[in-house]
């Protein structure tokens, strides 16, 4: 082989021709590769930089509780200081940081919803970093929780799912309720469609997970549509006293209802104004 190629090269003008052909071939291959797969290369580069940015933000804002690599920190007593974030997915970050629950202001029974600290870009960067730690639920696409074209039947079905799965903690009118030890199920009023979807998907804090395998994406969307329809309904029966049920209603009946009855009774029995006029001394 070597003899043949040597002889062939020898017949050509330059002994360097073989080298030139080799270089040319490499150039074409490299050029073709660059032309055919530039998008992938660029995306992974951009995503890599997002992850790097997210990691930088994470180290400043989250690592003190969740560990530098999101591995979680365990206290001396064996309790979780900050839970591990490996495998929680981008959806969990988008929910926890996007609703202001994280970063927590102080350790306590429950991370409360408060003002959001990070910008949407920063949140998605952190979400990308946490998603890179392990496989977990991604941030849902807009179509998954868009309820603009949901029909009445789906709303009714969503109501059935809501009453079966959610009312135990979140109350029949979704205004929330108490849990033991200072914890509580928050009100769902004013929570965006996306965040309700993400909460179902990831099960934040004490809330159980409702995975897509069991509670299908369409069923989740129906629940959200039902919640939105509940908010729009007029209060047919007058003031609902916050929809807290028998406690608020009983308190109102005892204080205002019976109180006004007592007031009337006092008024009826009280002696009216008397006059000194016409009284014979």
């Amino acid at each position, binding site marked *: 082989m070597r003899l043949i190629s040597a002889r062939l090269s020898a017949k050509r003008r330059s002994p360097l021709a073989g080298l030139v052909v080799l270089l040319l071939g490499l150039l074409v291959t490299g050029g073709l590769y660059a032309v055919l797969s530039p998008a992938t290369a660029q995306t992974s580069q951009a995503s890599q930089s997002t992850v790097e940015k997210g990691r930088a933000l994470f180290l400043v804002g989250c690592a003190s509780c969740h560990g530098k690599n999101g591995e979680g920190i365990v206290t001396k007593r064996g309790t979780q200081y900050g839970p591990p974030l490996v495998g929680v997915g981008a959806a969990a970050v988008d929910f926890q940081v996007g609703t202001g629950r994280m970063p927590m202001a102080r350790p306590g029974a429950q991370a409360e919803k408060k003002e959001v600290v990070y910008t949407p870009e920063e949140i998605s960067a952190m979400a990308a970093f946490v998603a890179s730690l392990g496989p977990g639920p991604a941030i849902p696409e807009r179509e998954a929780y868009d309820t603009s074209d949901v029909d009445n039947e789906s709303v009714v079905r969503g109501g059935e799912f809501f009453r079966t*799965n959610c009312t*135990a903690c979140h109350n029949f009118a979704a205004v929330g309720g108490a849990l033991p030890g200072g914890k509580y199920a928050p009100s769902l009023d004013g929570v965006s469609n996306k965040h309700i979807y993400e909460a179902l998907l990831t099960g934040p804090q004490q809330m159980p997970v409702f995975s897509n395998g069991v509670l299908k994406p369409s069923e989740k969307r129906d629940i959200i549509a039902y919640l939105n329809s509940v908010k729009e309904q007029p209060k047919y029966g007058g003031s609902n006293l916050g929809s807290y049920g028998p406690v608020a209603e009983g308190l109102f009946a005892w204080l205002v209802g019976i109180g006004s009855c007592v007031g009337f009774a006092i008024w009826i029995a009280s002696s009216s104004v008397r006059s000194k006029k016409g009284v014979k001394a």
Partner: protein
Amino acid sequence: MTVHEREGMPGNEDAVATSEHGTAPARREAGDPFPDPGLHEHQPRPTDVDERAGKRAERQIATMFVLSALCTLLFCVAYFVFQVGDDPDVIMGFGASNLALGLTLGLALLLIGIGTIQWARKLMSDVEIVEMRHPTASSETDRAETLQALDAGVSDSGIGRRPLVRNSLIGALALLGLPAIVALRDLGPLPGNKLAVTVWRRGMRVVNDVAGTPIRPEEVEIGQLINTQPEILFETEDGERTYEGTELLQAKTKASTIVVRMQPDDITPSAGRANWGVDGILCYSKICTHVGCPISLWEQQTHHLLCPCHQSTFDLADNGKVVFGPAARALPQLPLMVDDEGYLVAQSDFTEPVGPSYWERGDA
């Protein structure tokens, strides 16, 4: 109305009215350490002595009655004006019809009440009345007459002398209880073992409540809660459901379950329950053992299941043990396994009766 007219009114003989400008004399009975203080000095109201005040009160009261009539008319108008149904009228977020009907009728009644009371307070006679107490028993003569009539009846009927009549009457009266027993017999018989068994059987699939879809273990994540039912409640035969109506509800009240998944390391199964779960997936009755409320308030981090009715708390990682509240027994657990197609199914029915305790259950 003068005092003398009042005293002459029938049924008011014992009422001692004071004279218009004086007080009843303080009476003192023999041996009574506390003298009767009598009535305080009577003071007339402005409406009694001032003609103009009287007229003003009259106008006030009439105004309330007129306003009440107006509200009644508005009620009738509101009934026809405001739309209800699919596209109801709304005032400030409230249903307009209910709001208007309630307010107008409520005010109409309230104004009549207030007007009437005001009438009594301002214009009706204003004299203090004392009504003396009477013994509540009938008079001696009435009582003697009654006893006499009873004796006469007994001796006339000869109930003591004619035992045949007496005994047959007693028999006839006793038999009158029979129609009640016959008519109400469908309240029984005793439920037998109905309370102790549910529709769960070996190999019956555990399906998602409402949707009725079977569940694969790999779809269930750690920390997941699923409200579940036995598949038979969703089964159809020739387009008709096997269980329907009352039967369906009765089956549901006993067979409702919840499926949860925890880290297998967190679970401490008691003896014989080691293989009742599938990779940390456990199934429990959804019916509280206290008074039978449906419970699905699950804290995924503490593994506690709470009953919203009376705060009974069960630890699902520890065989449904009661950790708080009035429930006396642990939550019954349904043994799970996976069928040939990879879906979660029951190994058997519950091994103990679900729900609240009952007399025939024997324990707790």
